[in-house]
């Protein structure tokens, strides 16, 4: 049932096993490395890999914009909350070198984790991932939850876009300034989307049950092998990331 992916660009020619290994490599960098430089480089590499894998650069960055904003907020909050060390400025808020380093650590860690997760979701075919999980022994009812969750992502995105278009056509301007405006925005934006989501959950349950989902403990597996050559190449890249962490720690990278 799975189409061959050998002619696909970048990471897409690898399967879910390779993608999982790469994600593990990135997460290792994010969680185990104390080097801000390495973590920042890893985040940039994740974005670059997305581009090489056929993702639109603009679309990728657009999706990550709130993540970057949140990372900036993390940096500021951490820089302001750490009081140890010498103040860098004689006036204004107490900002210390330790605070800046701590903020940079936290922000880059967050960026690596989110960009690599974003990359994983972008390049991994959920159906193949679920199939891998089934072959690894996970009951298919649970493995399929992942596919369903990802099926809802474009649905919510599309519903949200449609609701925003409808707001534009009615001349409704939403705002988050003030409690009243925020409540109105939530009601006018998220409630229609959520209502659609609830309706969809019911319909999709019927659709799956109506096609014998859960009737047997097994189902016919997808076509294709679990691990391919491209997965090995991606696995080596993931191992390289892990080696970078060790090297950076030993070399004392900032």
């Amino acid at each position: 049932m799975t189409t061959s992916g050998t002619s696909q660009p970048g990471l897409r020619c690898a399967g879910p096993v390779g993608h999982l290994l790469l994600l593990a490599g990135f997460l290792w960098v994010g969680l185990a490395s104390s080097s801000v430089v390495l973590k920042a480089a890893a985040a940039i590499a994740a974005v670059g890999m997305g581009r090489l894998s056929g993702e639109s650069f603009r679309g990728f960055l657009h999706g990550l914009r709130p993540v970057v904003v949140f990372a900036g907020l993390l940096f500021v909050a951490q820089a302001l909350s750490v009081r140890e060390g010498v103040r860098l400025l004689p006036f204004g808020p107490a900002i210390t070198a330790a605070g800046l380093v701590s903020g940079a650590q936290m922000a880059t860690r967050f960026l690596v984790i989110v960009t690599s997760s974003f990359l994983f979701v972008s390049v991994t075919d959920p159906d193949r991932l679920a199939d891998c999980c089934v072959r690894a022994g996970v009951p298919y009812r649970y493995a399929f939850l992942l596919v369903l969750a990802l099926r809802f992502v474009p649905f919510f995105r599309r519903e949200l876009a449609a609701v925003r278009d409808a707001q534009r056509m009615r001349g409704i301007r939403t705002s988050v300034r003030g409690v009243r405006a925020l409540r109105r925005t939530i009601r006018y934006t998220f409630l229609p989307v959520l209502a659609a989501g609830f309706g969809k959950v019911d319909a999709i349950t019927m659709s799956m049950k109506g096609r014998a989902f859960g009737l047997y403990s097994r189902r016919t597996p997808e076509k294709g092998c679990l691990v391919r050559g491209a997965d090995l190449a991606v696995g080596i890249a993931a191992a390289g990331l892990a080696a970078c962490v060790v090297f950076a720690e030993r070399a004392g990278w900032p």
Partner: protein
Amino acid sequence: MYYEGRQRAALRAVTERIEPGAAVAITGPSGCGKTTLCRVLAGFIPSLVTAAVDGDARLDGLSVLAADPATLAARLGFVQQDPEAQICTLRVRQEVGFGPQNLCLPRGEVEQRVDAAMEAAGIAGLADRDTPTLSGGEKQRVAIASILAMNPGVLVLDEPTANLDPRGAKQLFDTLRGLQRERGRTLLVVEHRLVPLLSLAPCVWRMDAGEVVAHASPRSACEVEALGGRTRHREPTERPGPGRVVASLEDVWVDYGERPVLHGLSLQLRRGEILGVIGPNGGGKTTLLRAIAGLTSPRAGRVWRAPGARVGMVFQHPHQQIFERDVRRELEIDGALGAEDLAVLLRDARLVGLEDAAPLSLSQGEKRRLTLATTLRCSPDVLLLDEPFIAQDRRNVEWVVERLRQARHGGAAVALVTHDVPEAADLCDRILYLGEETFLGRAEDVFSELSGAGNEPFTPGYWGTVR
């Protein structure tokens, strides 16, 4: 059968029998229990939807009320009303193979069934497409193919042609006829449009308020009309001549990714006329409305709207443009209404008594009337409607048609996207066909050209002569 928390019975003492290999068409006004009846037969009620049910429903002697729907799946396939809501995988081929894989069939048989079902549903070319990128009609075909691949003995289809273009609808009816006559499948089809179903020689059940109130075996459109199905025999009304241009497109190109949707389209919308937009699924009809409304920017070309012109758009799915917690507030989003004005609006939209109801709890027909009423409240100069007749019974269709005529008389330019070709022929002053080729002109000229180009299903004559 009572849904949880409801005082009114959704089904009342329905006692019917369907013989193997028969075709049954169910019709009736919105909310009369057609979908509920299908859900009971598919085993979804009371297994997945909480409801109090008396009596019994049997499929090949097996009680469906006590059965897990999954155990019924190989015997009965149910294509739901909203195709978008029943697709659960991310690629067409996987979606069609989902059921056979759940039946644990050998891989070779799964492949064989998937190929045959996609061929029958006319989607062989979509096998590797991502499901979220499909148009509404394409999703409908995928949903139908995914049920055909289960190879069930009984097929239940809830308004299966609602999202299909006329060619797709014809193809579906041909497929259903083949399944019934050559393979002995039993068919139960919920449809408002009965005339195209005549080729299946169905027994028609007319439902009302949860009951089957009439049975018939119509063989002609006249007999269908006597049953209360949707046919069009309206008296012609006076049409004002077209007025000034209020919006226009000049050499407009729109692409979705690498897929071109509109190719150098030019047209003008004039006050006092209704432009019908027809064509195959995925042909760019909705995109055209979005471009006129300013919701989609063209890659090239120019979209012009008269300065100060108000544009109103009624979306295909009413729930997307309902925001408030009750009907009264929904009508008042664009400004407070006096008691008298509110009463007039409610009466006009046939929503009297529902002013305090939650809009999202209304029936599809009521939601459609509400969204059109809120759009018309702003007296738009350009009124855009995307498939307003889908899942509507005859009364609602007539209500929508009357509002469009009023808008035309009021000097609005109306653009109506629809697959209901006879309705478009009856109502519209000009027709735009968006397909492999583009035709624009007076309705009779365009239909004549379409007929000459071998596109008969897109002409009203085709639907009027089907037997």
